[in-house]
């Protein structure tokens, strides 16, 4: 038989699948949805908006206060008319941008700290969706802080925009990726330890770096930096996906850590 004949034969044959289990499932689902009363439910976006009222504004307020503090601190340097060297400016920018991702930690695990996670997990919206909202809220604030840090470094520390953008983004994305990898694969306290260790290592490496006085970033360096940023974004994205998949059940080490 050739493929055409096989297809013709298969089409003409009666269906061999057992309909009974499927029919039973359909009947059960039908019964279930018949008796389920009309629900007073809102969409996930509606809940996400209400989440702003309960939690998001506190996160953004905290991030805003951190920005105000940092800018006051740096403006204080400017008032004293200190000369910024390229190296100092870049190091301060990298340090600041590398610290921003760690703001995620206390807010992501807040429900664990206050024993709210079981109630939250038993809610209509899955814990994964709730985590996603928290991640979006915190990262939105983090991006604003990153932008603020870059603007301050340009205005106060006289860095060129491209230089500030390159070093700022690299530091931010590098430590964000480390954070996401740790959260996705390690139990809570191990993740905190790894992140702490990474930050110390980052600081130590930064200290050893020597930056010249020129702020010009060559095309190959710029290209390399861009590719690294894209790579780090991709890695972070996949870790976030893993975090959200694992968050459906407690296998995210929430209660087992």
């Amino acid at each position: 038989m050739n493929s055409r004949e096989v297809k013709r034969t298969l089409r003409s044959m009666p269906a061999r699948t057992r309909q009974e289990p499927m029919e039973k499932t359909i009947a059960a689902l039908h019964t279930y949805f018949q008796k389920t009363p009309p629900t007073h439910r809102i969409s996930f976006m509606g809940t996400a908006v209400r989440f702003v009222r309960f939690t998001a504004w506190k996160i953004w307020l905290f991030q805003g206060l951190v920005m105000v503090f940092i800018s006051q601190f740096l403006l204080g340097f400017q008032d004293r008319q200190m000369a910024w060297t390229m190296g100092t400016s870049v190091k301060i920018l990298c340090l600041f941008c590398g610290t921003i991702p760690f703001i995620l930690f206390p807010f992501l695990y807040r429900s664990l700290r206050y024993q709210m996670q079981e109630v939250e997990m038993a809610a209509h919206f899955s814990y994964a969706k709730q985590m996603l909202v928290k991640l979006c809220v915190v990262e939105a604030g983090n991006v604003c802080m990153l932008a603020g840090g870059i603007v301050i470094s340009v205005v106060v520390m006289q860095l060129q925009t491209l230089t500030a953008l390159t070093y700022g983004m690299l530091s931010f994305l590098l430590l964000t990726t480390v954070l996401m990898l740790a959260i996705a694969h390690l139990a809570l306290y191990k993740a905190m330890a790894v992140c702490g260790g990474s930050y110390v290592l980052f600081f130590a490496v930064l200290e050893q770096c020597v930056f010249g006085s020129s702020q010009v970033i060559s095309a190959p360096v710029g290209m390399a930096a861009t590719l690294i940023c894209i790579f780090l974004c991709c890695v972070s994205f996949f870790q976030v996906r893993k975090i959200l998949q694992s968050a459906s059940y407690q296998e995210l080490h929430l209660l087992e850590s």
Partner: protein
Amino acid sequence: MELRVEHVSKKYADKTAVNDVSLTLTPGIWGLLGANGAGKTTLIRMIADILKPTAGEILYDGIPIATLDAEYRNLFGYLPQEFGFYPEFTVKDYLEYVAALKGLTKTHTREKIEELLEQMTLTEVINKKIRKLSGGMKRRVGISQALLNDPEILILDEPTSGLDPGERIRLRRLLAEFSKGRIVLISTHIVPDVEYIAAKQAIMRDGKIVLSGTTEELVRKMDGKVWQSTVDNETLARYEQGLKIVNLKNEGAEETQIRYLGERAVIAGSKEAEPHLEDLYLWLFGAKEGGEE
């Protein structure tokens, strides 16, 4: 309506918390009894779709709850054994927050919160921070959040912990009323809390269901095994060593009335006593293990 737990197990690296448990829950109040570490909370978490079983399946009206997903979570209310709250939350904030997570509309939330706070006598503390409430009040707030979405299945893990006797009775009344046409599963090691309101019980030990049935059937298993006798205080110490004494009552300065368990009367003059569920619990677990808090 039926919730079927079929050969469910939960294994961790170092232990098996739940071992091949099968149970069919029908409308009414179910008590899940067992000592600490019996596996009750792990089983409850799997029924609440918070923990994934290592083996087995849980079905609601024949449909796996993993398939139903959010629709299943719409159906149940859950009060965990240890639950907390964000420190800045007032009672109203907390209930509104949980209502938002349950996807309830603002109008429905407002009406439901008013109704629940009245039932739980929490109306006066609606704007008070939860951290400033007494333990019993906090527990009532916890029960309120479980009832926000009018659940068909209510799962309560140690709901009476911290409640005074009056509050316990009020809660029992509320649950008895609520359970009509609904499944209510109460996990506890305080036996009297479920003995009078739960029509059916399941007793867990070391991750397995050792006994299940109606309360009456289970209590009848202790027929002829519960005894009452009055002994003088000098011999009491000897009996305490050798007998499973479940209750002691001073009868004046020199005598004590004891209630003990045994296949036969050990003390001369003992009378057979009417068994309670707690006697069965202590018979299975022993006074030490069963009484551990």
